[in-house]
């Protein structure tokens, strides 16, 4: 079974890394409400390496969240750790117009 959804934020010298665990769907909505409040830097890396499915509702949550972070925190957002299908969805829905792909180690 998929692990329950949760968001971890790690502070680092290069910015905050936001790690999404589990599936991102309608049930993740409440967690995104708190995310903006916890962002403290203007460089954000969103890490999807432990993310499962992202459905259309999850894409809507991510689009809203990235737009809010950019607008309210004046932050640059980058993305890493995507699997094949989620890369495809991000291309299809314009997420990569808002956030660039981070270079991975």
């Amino acid at each position, binding site marked *: 079974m998929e692990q329950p959804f949760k968001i971890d934020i790690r502070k680092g010298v290069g910015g905050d890394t936001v790690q999404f665990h589990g599936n991102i769907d309608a049930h993740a909505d409440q967690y995104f409400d708190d995310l903006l409040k916890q962002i403290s830097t203007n460089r954000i890396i969103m890490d999807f390496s432990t993310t499962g*499915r992202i459905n259309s509702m999850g894409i*809507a949550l991510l689009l809203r969240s990235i737009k809010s972070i950019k607008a309210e925190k004046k932050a640059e957002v980058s993305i890493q750790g995507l699997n094949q299908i989620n890369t495809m969805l991000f291309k299809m829905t314009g997420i990569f117009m808002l956030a660039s792909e981070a270079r991975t180690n």
Partner: protein
Amino acid sequence: MAHVKATKLNVHGFCLNANGTIVRIPRSPLPLNQGNRVHEWRVGSIDDKDTIIAHLEQILEGSDDAHDFLRQRAALMVDEMLENALYAAPRDADGKQLFAKGGKRGLLPEERITLRCSFDGERLSLEVSDSWGSLSPETVQRFIALNLAEEGAEGDRAGRGLFFMWRLMDDFYVSVQPGEATAIGGALPLYPHPDEKGA
């Protein structure tokens, strides 16, 4: 598992090409029962979604990248199909959606949602049917056109799930008996076109 044959005329049966244009009316449902085992699940609540996806992933066993990508696409399609049938399809007499996404949701007494699939080793056919018949051809085309617009990636864009189905599945089709039943289906190839590999 039994394959349920459609015996009534499809009042609005159509499939859409790569431009979102209706290309044939009506279109027969996919031949899910031609020589390959048909798997069928009667859905009782939203809680069944992860169980069905886990079963489907077992059907698509294979350790190479192609099977892994097929499992990823299949899981997403089933997710969207069931969310659509459970939350978008139920409408009141005025066309207003009855259930909000994310809410706990069991089926109403007369309601039926069925997911079927078959896999021939290179192509996975999927179909979900519900007992509402609330989708119109105009709505499907409007959702696809809306989501094809590249400008401004709005968060709350209607019909994104349906757009994903149309975009990812070959031979995408919708079959509607207004007020009675809707079936949505299509097929996922094990080896998709290079443009659709997400790389």
